[in-house]
């Protein structure tokens, strides 16, 4: 993004030397630039962790394959999981929140611009620390290793005795640092939404994207902090000789599991709720109808926020909790499906009877709806303690959470990129390449993750390095790997689209989708000051009111 990103309409800014532009980007406190930095940083890690996934899939393509050693395989799935959750998922969603929330609520910037920059660079440092373990983990002898304890890092694997060198330290510090960044951003989003709304933007008129990000940020405060606390304990154990998770001195490995999953399960809702937010903005615009059941949507989101805080131990059905705990966590897990189901019905109700336009953002949104539904259904299956005892730690679980995180989060993020790219860059993404991207990705996704359920049911454990021929897993694994490569080709089409459209795409104009929220009322890309005059709103769809003064929404709300 060159100087065009800060072009003020009607004012021609002369070209600056590139080093000045770089300096501006590094020192920026502007929410739009920080949003873009977050998104680019996350896309970089999407590619890195995607390559790790491809190596995993090549290793599992054939029985008795030895592309990588078992040690490297352990590092690969640890790096893949941690990167995707902490350095791809959270940053890209924070990036969109950063970029969109102030624009949608008619604010000049986030509540604390410098805290915003600080949080971004903390997260960036976290990602850097994590990958620095590749060279630094054995103390800079050039022969490094990477974290290999799995993304949930169960005790006692993380104890000094079982994890020599510094790879686990880099893992813990990276998550600690990026956790502080997440908490800073969450505080910022909450303060922005509560304190920076333009006149007339009552909470009941706020775009759903802002509402859902408010709930998400509240969840970050309550659930990322336990992870921070647990990492501090782990570092105390490893460096000061503490005994928190040291079973030899009376410590408990179970305690780490609880602390990790108290973070770990709300975390998946932290990732999916912003994608619900994208759906709630995109589906109405391409169905040409206002969102169905706005207050219910808000209530369901708050409800998910609360209930998802008390489901964490459904990750631990096989570790030997008592039957009361198992029953409790089964019931809460089933219960969280109810508000989620309400949301699905609301989006369907929005599409019902609408004049649906099958543009690329809408295609990804429809994909999201179907896939997230299936992911939710396997989630309800695994939420039952009896069922989970059979299938826990199998590929069925891997298939389930990739269905939510790829079929849900990644599809949601793609929808958001196709929808807001014109606002961010001023250029439309190419529709044909976008359709190639969508269809290839859908085919690859379903080949990989639909079939992945079956070896799980047949008993293939997760994190397995290789397997014997003739167990009925061979052909399935081959097709799963082929699907992964089709997804990789789709991502190449996407990256090509991002670059080609940035250079040669059609000009977007202020409002290419004929949408209704405030960000579309200003030029694309938006000027540094966002709004020339402070907007005021009288309904949930201020731009509808503006375009249809004869029949404004404000008359009915």
């Amino acid at each position, binding site marked *: 993004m060159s100087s065009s990103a800060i072009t003020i309409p009607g004012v021609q800014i002369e070209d600056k030397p590139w080093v000045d532009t770089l300096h501006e980007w590094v020192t920026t406190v502007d929410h739009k630039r920080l949003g873009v930095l977050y998104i680019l940083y996350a896309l970089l890690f999407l590619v890195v962790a995607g390559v790790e996934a491809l190596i995993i899939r090549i290793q599992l393509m054939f029985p008795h394959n030895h592309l990588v050693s078992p040690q490297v395989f352990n590092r690969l799935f640890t790096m893949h999981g941690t990167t995707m959750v902490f350095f791809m998922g959270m940053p890209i969603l924070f990036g969109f929140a950063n970029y969109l929330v102030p624009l949608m609520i008619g604010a000049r910037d986030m*509540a604390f611009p410098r805290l915003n920059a600080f949080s971004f660079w903390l997260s960036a440092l976290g990602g850097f620390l994590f990958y620095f373990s590749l060279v630094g983990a054995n103390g800079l002898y050039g022969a490094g290793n990477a974290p290999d304890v799995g993304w949930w890092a169960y005790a006692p694997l993380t104890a000094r005795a079982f994890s020599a060198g510094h790879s686990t330290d880099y893992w813990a510090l990276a998550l600690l640092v990026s956790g502080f960044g997440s908490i800073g951003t969450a505080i*910022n989003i909450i303060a922005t939404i509560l304190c920076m709304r333009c006149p007339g933007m009552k909470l009941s008129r706020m775009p759903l994207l802002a509402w859902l990000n408010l709930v998400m940020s509240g969840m970050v405060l309550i659930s990322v902090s336990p992870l921070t606390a647990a990492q501090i304990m782990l570092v105390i154990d490893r460096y000061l000789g503490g005994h928190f998770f040291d079973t030899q001195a*009376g410590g408990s490995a179970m305690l780490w599991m609880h602390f990790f999953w108290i973070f770990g399960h709300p975390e998946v809702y932290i990732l999916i709720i912003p994608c619900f937010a994208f759906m709630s903005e995109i589906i109405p615009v391409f169905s040409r109808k206002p969102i169905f059941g706005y207050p219910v949507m808000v209530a369901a989101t708050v409800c998910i926020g609360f209930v998802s805080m008390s489901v964490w131990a459904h990750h631990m059905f096989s570790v030997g909790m008592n039957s009361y705990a198992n029953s409790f966590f089964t019931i809460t897990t089933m219960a969280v499906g109810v508000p989620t189901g309400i949301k699905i019905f609301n989006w369907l109700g929005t599409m019902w009877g609408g004049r649906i336009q099958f543009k690329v953002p809408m295609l990804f949104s429809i994909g999201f709806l179907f896939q997230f539904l299936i992911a939710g259904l396997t989630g309800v299956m695994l939420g039952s303690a009896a069922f989970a005892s059979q299938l826990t730690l199998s590929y069925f679980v891997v298939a389930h959470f990739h269905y939510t995180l790829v079929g849900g989060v990644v599809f949601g993020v793609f929808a958001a990129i196709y929808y807001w790219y014109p606002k961010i860059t001023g250029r439309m993404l190419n529709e044909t390449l976008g359709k190639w991207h969508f269809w290839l990705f859908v085919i690859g996704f379903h080949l990989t993750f639909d079939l992945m359920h079956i070896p799980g049911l047949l008993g293939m454990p997760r994190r397995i390095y290789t397997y014997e021929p003739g167990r009925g897993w061979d052909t399935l694994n081959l097709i799963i790997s082929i699907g992964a490569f089709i997804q990789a080709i789709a991502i190449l089409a996407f990256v090509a689209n991002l670059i080609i459209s940035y250079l040669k795409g059609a000009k977007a104009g202020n409002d290419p989708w004929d949408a209704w929220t405030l960000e579309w009322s200003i030029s694309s890309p938006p000027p540094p000051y966002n709004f020339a005059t402070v907007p005021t709103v009288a309904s949930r769809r201020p731009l509808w009111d503006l375009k249809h003064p004869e029949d404004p929404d404000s008359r009915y709300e």
Partner: protein
Amino acid sequence: MSAMANPFPEAPTTWSLPDRGKVAMTGLIIAESAIFTIFVVAYLFYVGKSLSGPTPSEVLETPIFYTICLLSSSLTIHRAAKSLARDRVGAFLGLWLLTIALGGLFLYGTAQEWHRMIYQHGLTISTNLFGTTYYSLVGLHGFHVTAGLVMLLVVAIFALAGRVRMQESRRVEVLALYWHFVDAVWVVVFTVVYVLGR
């Protein structure tokens, strides 16, 4: 753009939003409470599970005096913020310095207790589970007191230079909110470590 110069309806006559400083500090307090909760749970979970001594009942002495110091500093900082809001800068400065002194006294008390435990009883963070959980929980709180004192000192330096006046009282109140939180956490830590944990 010019066609949309002021395209939106009339602004409502009354439009007030909460103070962002207070909202952000509340957010921070929620996050910090979650961190402390995890440490408190770990402490309670491991009470009586140490495989070797020393045990809490052998070495802990209830720090009544220093607790009173810390809790009364909440009162002084509250009075200080009130004084500043009424533009009584002298009273503000006096109460502010008193708050710092009380906080410093509390830290001295913790240091003394730790010194006694380490050198008289040989209890360190790696001795047993009690040592691990005790030093982490009390240390985490002590760290927050220290961070608070640094911030209070920064304000004190500005106040001594005559730069803190009535218009700064909202910022001072945000800081006071943090200090109240640190005190409230001590009530929990005190109850858990010195009452329940023995």
